[in-house]
């Protein structure tokens, strides 16, 4: 039984269905990666799992509980966190305030969690008083991931966390994400850098026009000649 599972998801933005019987699942402590061409519906699938896109069919299950009807805010309460593809930080607020906003729903003392985020991303501690909008792309993505971690989620969803960062920073971010997974969090991410992402993934999904084209372990997908040719650039 997976920790988080979107089952047979069909739906879209009101017009034609973007997702068609799409199924995505991730286990606790594992990393699942969704890859696919632009416009395949990867972001839509993420939003559907987070309750930001209505489903005509299918359901979303978290730890055995059907959460299809829950609002995104309620899913945060249930232990899910989401880093969207765009606009994933509060640009006008400081790094520290961004993290505080991540913990907005928490009523207990979250200073320990903030320390953990600073341990994971030490640069953020130095820049804690700086506005997130003034940081470099890589640092901003770290703020975005850090904000999402502030609720101590069981399931962390990342939509292209390495978009627009340099290769070195990207390696570092992947390392951090692996670390988060090892800590027991179920990590579900969409990645443009498909080959590298699949190499750290326990499970991989290739999505095309809103449908599951291939689903397998990351390793197997990387070894699959057809997947390599069509989706990983050879």
């Amino acid at each position: 039984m997976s920790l988080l599972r979107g089952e047979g998801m069909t739906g879209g933005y009101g017009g034609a269905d973007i997702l068609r019987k799409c199924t995505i699942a991730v286990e606790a402590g594992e990393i699942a990666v969704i890859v696919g061409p632009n416009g395949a519906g990867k972001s839509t699938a993420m939003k559907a799992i987070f309750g930001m896109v209505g489903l005509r069919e299918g359901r979303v299950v978290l730890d055995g509980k059907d959460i299809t009807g829950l609002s995104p805010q309620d899913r945060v309460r249930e232990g899910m966190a989401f880093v969207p593809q765009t606009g994933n930080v509060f640009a006008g607020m400081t790094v520290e305030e961004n993290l505080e906003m991540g913990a907005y729903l928490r009523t207990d003392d979250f200073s320990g969690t903030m320390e953990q985020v600073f341990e994971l991303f030490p640069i953020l501690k130095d820049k804690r008083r700086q506005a997130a909008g003034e940081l470099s792309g890589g640092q901003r993505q770290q703020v975005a991931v850090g904000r999402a971690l502030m609720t101590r989620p069981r399931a962390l969803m990342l939509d292209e966390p390495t978009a627009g960062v340099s290769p070195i920073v990207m390696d570092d971010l992947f390392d951090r994400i692996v670390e988060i997974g090892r800590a027991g969090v179920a990590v579900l991410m969409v990645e443009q850098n498909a080959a590298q992402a699949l190499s750290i993934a326990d499970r991989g999904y290739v999505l095309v026009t809103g449908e599951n084209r291939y689903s397998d372990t990351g390793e197997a997908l990387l070894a699959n000649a057809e997947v390599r040719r069509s989706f990983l650039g050879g």
Partner: protein
Amino acid sequence: MEDILNAVVLLSNFVVVPALAYGSQLALGALGVTLIYGILRFANFAHGDLMAFGTMFVVMATWWMQGAGLSIDPLPTALLALPFGIAAAVAVSLLTDRAVYRFYRRNKSPAMIFVIVSIGVMFLMNGVVRMVIGPDDRSFGDGARFLIKVKEFREATGLSEGLALKLSQGLTIAVTVAVVVALFRFLQKSRTGKAMRAYSDNEDLALLSGVSPDRVVLFAWAIAGTLATIAGTLYGLDKSFKPFTYFQLLLPIFAAAIVGGIGHPVGAVVGGYIVAFSEVTVTYAYRKFLIYVAPESWRPEGLVQLLSTEYKFAVSFVILVVVLLVRPTGIFRGKVI
């Protein structure tokens, strides 16, 4: 030397002090406009009439208190009546949000619809105010007139020019400082204040973080109503209460919010003073000032006034147009309208 001092006192008396007071009133008004823009994302044309509405209740409560013999002399009774006006303005703001704006918010209507709706609300409030208290000038100020009198100042300094500081001006500046400090502390430090900034900064992410839009909107209206009433009451004490003037204040208030960067609270305050100082310096007649500082042969013939006071609103208008053309984000890089 004495001429220079006289010139400084003259300018302080006729430019600096009035502009500081007027700028404070605009700053409080612009803060309300900017806050509503930041949270609800539209330029609220009803803000001037909201000021009139809140102030009307202060005026009526003041009359009632005066009749009942309540007084905090030498301070104006209006200060005591202020909470009534604030309560009324906050209540009407929340009521219009419930009855009108919420519908458009749920429909995710574009900002232009909101602006037009707010113009409707403006006419409605305007009508209510005129029906209840009438369109005429109403005086409600009492208490001491001056903190510093011209005569006393002259006697104390031995200068021929005098400086007057009206109680209403001193009050305006003091209250504005207190209100602005309190508001900024709230926005910077409190949980709700941070949620408001977050919502203004990135609505979707704020929702993802669990911020409740209803709560943020409620606070925005409550603060806007409070600021509007305080600004309107201070303006009324300083000048007089006349509903139409409050409608006219909308232009300099919008200019202030936009020149500072709309959606940006610091910008609103700075913008308020920029507009006020521009207006007062441009419409002041510098003849006497030049007589003090310029050599004998340069004595001016006319008033040396750039713009007659009847045209003072043109100053706001010019500022507005220039900012929108040259730097639409305003000084502090607020949002583009």
